[in-house]
């Protein structure tokens, strides 16, 4: 085995490069800034472009423009930056822009604790746009997963023509860990589907069934391409026809919601006869796995479900895991967000216990055991 000792932000940049990312725009913000630095070393020499924008709004604007010109784009920020990204995230959904957005979460609200960790942007990520259309969000627990999931985020972005979030945190982005990235097995690289050769006309939002993902032709490519922020038809022309409007909205939902099973990444550790299930994600899943181990050592029967995909919610996996238990414990590095998703999925009569904390320190295994009723 050959190891390296690197931080999550470096792993993210290297995964992006491996996925074929050739454009990065970002604005400095702790604890995401080093992604800008790594990308600035990785891309320009290889034909890529990196630019530090004047603000987060411009970061997104540059990325969306470049993506629609055919580039594979990445941007990275932290919670306060996502606030400024918000309007253009809606645009990226509207225009079906393939792009990856990294959020190295930090303690909020507002400026919060710039150098301290939290995972408080979970629901913010899901509901970041006016209109409430679905997004894809992946959450790594380790530096190695940050590498794996960044790469997969690009695949999902390309496959579904949509913004995909990597919801990491300070605890992963700027924590160094022992990794062997060469041993990480990655799926085949996916690129956006081009317009079939010989096709004369290009419809930027063409689909037969609502869940179909339109083929892509770049602005500056052989087909004249159109893009609009306004409610539009398949040609990207403004429309006021309610039937067409609903058809497009259904499409934005269906292409992601119908693919939920394919996008669902999770690891399950079930114990026969378990009466408690711990559902966790992100860096806190590491505290949770220690807590589960200790609970078992003390004779308790506990199952664990760790989610890498937060959105679309892996509903089937949560439902199945919660079927046979009496209690579900959801530890989070916020004041209780994903627990709301879990609550709506468990069978009636199953108790759901949220264990949240937001004081910039990790939820420890002991805290999960005590407050989760597992001690």
């Amino acid at each position, binding site marked *: 085995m050959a190891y390296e000792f690197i931080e999550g932000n470096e792993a993210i940049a290297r995964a992006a490069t491996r996925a074929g990312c050739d454009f990065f725009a970002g604005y400095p913000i702790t604890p995401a800034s080093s992604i800008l630095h790594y990308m600035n070393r*990785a891309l320009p020499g290889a034909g890529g472009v990196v630019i530090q924008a004047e603000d987060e709004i411009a970061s997104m604007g540059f990325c969306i423009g470049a993506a629609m010109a*055919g580039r594979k784009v990445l941007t990275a920020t932290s919670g306060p930056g996502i606030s400024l990204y918000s309007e253009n995230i809606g645009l990226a959904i509207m225009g079906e822009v393939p792009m990856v957005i990294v959020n190295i979460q930090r303690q909020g609200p507002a400026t919060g604790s710039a150098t301290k960790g939290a995972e408080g942007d979970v629901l913010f990520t899901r509901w970041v746009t006016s209109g409430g259309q679905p997004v894809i969000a992946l959450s790594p627990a380790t530096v190695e997963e940050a590498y794996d999931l960044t790469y997969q985020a690009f695949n999902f972005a390309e496959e579904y023509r949509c913004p995909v979030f990597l919801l990491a945190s300070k605890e992963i982005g700027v924590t160094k860990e022992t990794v062997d990235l060469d041993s990480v097995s990655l799926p085949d690289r996916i690129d956006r589907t081009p317009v079939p050769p010989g096709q004369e006309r290009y419809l930027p939002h063409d689909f037969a069934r609502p869940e179909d993902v339109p083929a892509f032709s770049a602005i500056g490519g052989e087909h004249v391409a159109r893009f609009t922020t306004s409610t539009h038809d398949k040609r990207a022309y403004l429309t006021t026809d309610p039937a067409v409007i609903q058809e497009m909205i259904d499409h934005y939902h269906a292409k992601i919601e119908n693919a939920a099973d394919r996008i669902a990444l999770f690891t399950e550790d079930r114990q026969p006869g378990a009466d408690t299930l711990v559902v966790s994600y992100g860096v806190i899943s590491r505290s949770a796995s220690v807590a589960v181990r200790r609970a078992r050592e003390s004779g308790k029967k506990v199952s664990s479900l760790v989610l890498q995909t937060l959105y679309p919610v892996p509903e089937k996996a949560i439902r199945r895991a919660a079927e046979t238990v009496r209690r579900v414990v959801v530890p989070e590095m916020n004041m209780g967000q994903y627990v709301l998703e879990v609550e709506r999925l468990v069978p009636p009569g199953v108790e759901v216990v949220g264990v949240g904390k937001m004081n910039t320190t990790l939820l420890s295994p002991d805290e999960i055991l005590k407050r989760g009723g597992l001690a």
Partner: protein
Amino acid sequence: MSESRYETYLNPAIGPLPFCPGCGHDSLVRNLDAALVRLGADPAKTVLVTDIGCIGLTCRHFITHAFHGLHGRSITYACGLKLARPDLNVIAIKGDGACGIGGTHLLNVARRNIGITLLVANNFNYGMTGGQHSVTTPTGGNTSDTPWGNVEAPMDLCATAAAAGAGWVYRATTFDDDLADVLVRAISSPGFAMVDVWELCTAYYQPQNQMKKRGLFELMDDLGCRRGLLVDKPRTEYTELYRQAAESGGPAIPKKPAIEPSHRHALKRQTGILVAGSAGQKIKSTATLLAEGGIFAGLQATQKDDYPITVKTGHSVAEIVLSPERIEYTGIEVPDYVIVVSEDGLRRISRQTASYPESCVVYADAALELPPTAARIRSLDLQSIRRKTGPLDLATAALAAFLAETGLYPVEAMAHAIETLRSPKLAEAGIRALNLGVTLVGKN
């Protein structure tokens, strides 16, 4: 410029231009069409970028690529397109309102000199939302939200762009006979070019201010806003400079040599170590070597750093976790070992020292006075070697002493990390400090 195949770039299938009768936008759009015809622009290599405002309805009428985005952000999309495809002709068209909400983008595209063309349809108010005042509404101007007349001063867009470094700036009106020629020159300009086109909004600003063509010219005189070419200072365009810089080579992500475990360790369980010192003592990088030495000895490691944002001052504390197994929980609730090499470091951890249990061992510079704690204290006479190690490697010496005494893993593994992962010059100093550190515990 080739002879154009097109008599017009307006798409008849989309229908007539949607503007109010007499609106200046209509004239601007027709002049843009004429300019594209004169240029013989390739529609497949031309993209019109608009944002919000009546003028944002423009791009859908053209047979070129079209990008219609959010209010005030057209410059950012245009720049993204140009950065991605420098060969494209990228023309952004926005209103005066968009110059307010997107003011910073105007400043920065001018400063960077990204080779897009910016046309501002400047009619002194927000037409689309009901005639409110904008950043260019003249003082005293009547709009739907300036009941006493505008008390704000208008922004001179050309002077603003010029001050930000724009290389080509022109002020025109939709009444100018040569507007199409001006647009040809702007679009042909390799760097950032802006045309501030003054015009009338026949729905709001014109009727509310009784301002017709003559009034527009009088306003120019009153405000001292001259027509014509105001800036002509060409400089190398951004994407060209970027290409040159990138081609001249640059740094890649430095790849450190891989660490292949080649030493043994004596660690039985996950162990938390704090290294506390000052800015300028290389606490972070020395702690990294402690972790990497551990990996050479077959351990897993994590590292988190804590330091003030003013990085050259105050404390620097590194948290290292070493474990014979995969590290799940990366927090250190109770440290097993604390190595303190400066007063700053001590001050930073002093909030916790009282709670350190007997199982914790604190290796501290003998010159430091530690607050009361149940932890065991091991004094290191760092001052005796300070002159030889220098400030940059004092922590290396302290960590060597710590390793030599605890035997968590062999000091040789950390030496291996220093020799393999540091530059030769730094490695030499590091090894010297390492050896000096080992002698500290030998003496006791």
